[in-house]
């Protein structure tokens, strides 16, 4: 289980390869990357990611630990960036390795749903016309709720 919060970019291929080193029992790796997307039709200059240092790592680690408890995982990686990011840049990734694809898929979706609502990150869009904080979505709360027992 690897959790990193960093300003620097990451290399998806490298991170996924790390999850399958030294093991012959991983049959499936699911990964997700989130990217800075322009929802304004060309008006977006950059995205600013603010976070709560100190809480962030431990919130991500807690979410990751919960996924590891619920599913049979050989390993998992969560990386989230902060700072100024340009359109198209990678914001974050999760990857989950398991013997079976069902565990890997479900754990990756779980990590994403919880990370969206429980990890202390906030996005601000810098547009040509000004700046605005991204609003949270009801659909993200709903996505999280489906994992409740």
């Amino acid at each position: 289980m690897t959790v990193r919060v960093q300003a620097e970019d990451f290399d998806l291929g490298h991170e996924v390869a790390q999850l399958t080193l030294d093991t012959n029992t991983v049959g499936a790796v699911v990964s997700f990357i989130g990217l800075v997307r322009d929802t304004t039709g060309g008006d977006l200059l950059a995205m600013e990611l603010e976070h709560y240092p100190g809480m962030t790592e431990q919130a991500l680690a807690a979410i990751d630990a919960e996924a590891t408890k619920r599913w049979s995982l050989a390993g998992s990686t969560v990386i989230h960036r902060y700072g100024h990011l340009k359109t198209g840049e990678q914001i974050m990734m999760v990857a989950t390795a398991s013997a079976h694809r069902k565990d890997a898929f479900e754990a990756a979706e779980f990590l994403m749903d919880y990370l969206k609502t429980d990890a202390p990150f906030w996005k601000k869009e810098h547009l040509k016309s000004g700046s605005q904080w991204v609003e949270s979505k009801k659909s993200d709360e709903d996505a999280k709720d489906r994992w409740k027992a």
Partner: protein
Amino acid sequence: MKQLEVLYFAWVRERIGIPKEQITTDAATVSDLIAELSAREERYALAFQDMAVVKVAIDQTLSTLDAPLEGAREIAIFPPMTGG
């Protein structure tokens, strides 16, 4: 009376104008603390006007507005998260 380190993030931080401050209070809960600050200055009232969307962490763990502040050292108040 207790001494708290209070942190603000995102638009809560922008409306209050500072990222953190030391506050001496005898508020029993985060709600009480928010009411106390809102009565004190307009910028707090503005930041906390819609309590339904404000989230809180006590000592870096997500918590609720009615959680007791007994023993707490670091309180953070912020909008819903939008990472990922």
